[in-house]
């Protein structure tokens, strides 16, 4: 064997602590080492050229580079080795920086350790075998899960790039939370006016297959080749036939709605046959089988069917069905849930009638909401004084530690809108006003100048006025004045924070991605890879990754679409060969490995043997360690290689 060993100085990062000359000369004395060098920056062009030159000149067959972390430059050096005609997996890297020079101060001890590490690598690399990277083709269709603004935007971007997109949304309509808003900050653009054109574009686009009232049921496969089962729930209305005339809703035997309308957050009621809101896309009605008499007793007059006689779009016999699709990339844009304010009982939500959440006020303020855009109390009166409490459920170790980012801005917006519509005296109780975005500070100034009162102090207590007048007393310390204030208000608005969806744990397990400590989906890197995940080919965008406003959401959905495009247009993906494999003759069929695999990569064959799909395998090593008969091995982590490394260290 002719091994080449290269010690990198890494500037002074390594050389500052380890005597690289001594180390290099020690390495030169090791058995089977033909060349041992040290150089200032091995990753640089001349550094790599050293390796390439030596491979040619000295006919080297194994290379060891002792430098920084493999995470940084393993690929670089493997590439250099390959360029010189040697199999790139005849290379091994030693981390002398993060594992040695950066964590020790004793120079002699650091040198000893470096010698141990390199010696071990030299012994190991002899046992390396040639391996090949596998290429798999990438399917060019994309699945977007979630039809809010993030999903809509990502779908439109991909569709206009000529890719076919499946947009799957669990509600009967796309639009998400944005469809519930009235005006958006800081421009006070009408949410519906800017959203509905996009929604219509989705419906009309030839490259988008829109499946609403549908949920992803199962995801199998690997990057570029995902096999997804989508469950299409029955609306009991034939989508292709319904034109959205809504005569059936008019004709329904229920003269008035009796079911709580979720789109209006329970502030109004709807009939069993309904459309979530007039601009819904697709403009198709839905029948709620829990509320519909026909389903409960089978004895309804079915006036809805009568009135739809011409088109005959209503079909009570409709069943759910499963669609199977194959896609190359998946973008998750499943959005957020609003914090449940009843978790903090002393704010009085549910206890006192005129305590509302911010989203409920959005619906009140909205012209197509339950009160036609009038901001009124439960008894129909206009409020004369309104309190808005910031930070409900956020920045609080009892509930959610994080700041929900958008609440300060929407609280300012609601203050403005409420004041405009009712002329009420508005009090915002805040801790900090967070207004970082473009034109946000200007909006804050505008609202302050309008005469909205700002009290810096978190709302501490809410109780009814003593004289039975029905007002609520809001108590807080005005920290800027240094005094306790009691403000009687007619209406209290709780600025609830954003939370991950209630079922986000189940959803992310479908796609095999992680979540961060706060429960939102985990990005690959918080700064440099905010839309990728640790699962190749699966991207996240919008509030499912963390609370954010619409501009940031749209930025992320564009980014996710771009990443997906980059993946698909590359056409193929290369997979690392550090995968595990089963020695069939030694496998006893005990099935210990199968449930352990976090990537579901192990199949149990008919002949009672386990088989690992090397495309799905990420080389975590769990099955290798767990196999009782030792019949699972892993490329680049063979037993002999590891034993040699150990022996090398202990020698």
């Amino acid at each position, binding site marked *: 064997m002719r091994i080449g060993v290269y010690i990198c100085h890494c500037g002074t990062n390594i050389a500052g602590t380890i005597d690289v000359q001594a180390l290099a000369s020690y390495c030169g004395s090791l058995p089977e080492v033909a060349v041992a060098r040290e150089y200032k920056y091995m990753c640089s062009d001349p550094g790599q050229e050293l390796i390439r030159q030596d491979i040619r000149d000295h006919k080297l067959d194994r290379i060891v580079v002792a430098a920084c972390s493999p995470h940084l430059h393993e690929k670089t050096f493997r590439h250099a080795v390959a360029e010189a005609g040697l199999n790139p997996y005849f290379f091994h890297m030693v981390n002398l920086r993060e594992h040695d020079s950066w964590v020790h101060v004793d120079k002699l001890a650091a040198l000893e350790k470096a010698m141990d590490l390199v010696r071990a690598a030299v012994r190991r690399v002899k046992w390396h075998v040639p391996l090949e990277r596998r290429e798999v083709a990438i399917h060019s269709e994309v699945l977007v899960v979630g039809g809010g603004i993030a999903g809509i935007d990502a779908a439109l971007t991909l569709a206009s790039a000529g890719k076919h997109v499946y947009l799957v949304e669990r509600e009967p309509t796309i639009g998400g939370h944005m469809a519930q808003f009235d005006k958006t900050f800081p421009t006070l653009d009408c949410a519906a006016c800017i959203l509905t054109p996009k929604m219509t574009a989705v419906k009309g686009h030839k490259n988008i297959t829109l499946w609403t009232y549908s949920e992803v049921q199962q995801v199998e496969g690997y990057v570029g080749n995902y096999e997804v089962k989508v469950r299409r729930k029955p609306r009991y209305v034939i989508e292709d036939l319904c034109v959205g005339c809504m005569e059936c809703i008019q004709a329904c035997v229920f003269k008035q709605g009796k079911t709580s309308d979720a789109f209006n957050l329970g502030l109004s009621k709807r009939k069993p046959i309904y459309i979530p809101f007039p601009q819904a896309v697709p403009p198709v009605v839905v029948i709620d089988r829990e509320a519909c008499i026909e389903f409960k007793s089978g004895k309804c007059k079915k006036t809805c069917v009568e009135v739809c006689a011409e088109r005959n779009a209503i079909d009570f016999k409709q069943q759910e069905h499963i669609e199977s699709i194959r896609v190359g990339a998946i973008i998750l844009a499943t959005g957020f849930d609003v914090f449940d304010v009843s978790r903090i009982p002393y704010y009085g939500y549910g206890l006192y009638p005129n305590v509302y959440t911010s989203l409920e006020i959005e619906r009140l303020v909205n012209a197509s909401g339950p009160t036609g855009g009038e901001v009124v109390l439960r008894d129909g009166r206009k409020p004369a004084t309104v309190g808005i409490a910031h*930070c409900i459920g956020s920045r609080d*170790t009892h509930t959610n530690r994080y700041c929900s980012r958008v609440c300060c801005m929407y609280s300012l917006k609601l203050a403005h809108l409420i004041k405009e519509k009712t002329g009420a005296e508005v009090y915002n109780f805040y801790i900090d006003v967070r207004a970082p975005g473009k034109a946000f500070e200007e909006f804050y100034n505008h609202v302050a100048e309008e005469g909205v009162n700002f009290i810096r102090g978190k*709302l501490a*207590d809410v109780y009814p006025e003593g004289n039975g007048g029905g007002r609520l007393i809001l108590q*807080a310390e005005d*920290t800027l004045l240094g005094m306790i204030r009691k403000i009687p208000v007619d209406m209290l608005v709780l600025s609830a924070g954003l939370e991950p969806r209630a079922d986000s744990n189940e959803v992310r397990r479908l796609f095999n991605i992680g979540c961060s400590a706060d429960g939102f989906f985990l990005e690959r890197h918080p700064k440099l890879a905010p839309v990728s995940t640790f699962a190749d080919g699966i991207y996240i965008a919008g509030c499912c990754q963390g609370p954010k406003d619409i501009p940031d959401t749209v930025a992320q959905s564009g980014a996710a679409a771009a990443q997906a495009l980059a993946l698909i247009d590359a056409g193929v993906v290369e997979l690392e060969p550090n995968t595990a494999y089963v020695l069939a003759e030694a496998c006893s069929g005990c099935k210990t490995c199968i449930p352990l695999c976090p990537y579901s990569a192990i199949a149990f064959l008919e002949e009672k043997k386990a088989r690992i799909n090397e495309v799905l395998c990420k080389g975590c090593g769990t099955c290798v360690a767990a196999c009782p008969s030792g019949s699972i091995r892993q490329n680049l982590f063979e037993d002999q290689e590891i034993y040699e490394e150990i022996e090398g260290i202990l020698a």
Partner: protein
Amino acid sequence: MKRLKAFWLSTEMRRKMKFQREADPLWAQKIAERPGCEGLFSCLQCGTCSGTCPLSIYMDFAPRRIIALVREGFKEDALSCQTIWLCASCYSCAVHCPRQIHITDVMYSLKREAIQEKLYPRHFPIPVLAQEFYKMVRRKGRSSEFWLVLRMAFRTNPMQLLGMAGTGWQLMRTGRLRLRQDRIEKVKELQSELAGREVG
């Protein structure tokens, strides 16, 4: 605070300036390390503690300001104020605080130090009551409400006993005024246990 007595002005002018030499960051650190006081430096100054405190309207510094004073290390202000003695240990602040800071324990730490450093307001009834309670329990192992109130009144304002006479009579006729001072049997043992423990 320095007082500038300007003889040409009818009022006294006080400078509300804080110099860095008055701040003791090591002391702040020490308080934050006491059991129950962790999280002191993560205070948002949101004011929820003052807002829920039933007594904050009577305090010279609201609880939030006490935390701010302690954080910045202004030891003398924090220890010589009335606020800490008005704290009724109701724990409303501790339960509402979004950072889960046990403000009540911070108050206790300050009370203890105020007594040790003799910075407490001398004739304020509450520290006097605390001290009498302390002495009584050390001597007898139990406390007597009657004797406690009596001692405290004598040390602060004996005239208030006149005002309390009515209540005293009510208690006496309903059999709720216990004049006897109880003593535990193993009082010597208790005293030595306490002595062995005392920091001073």
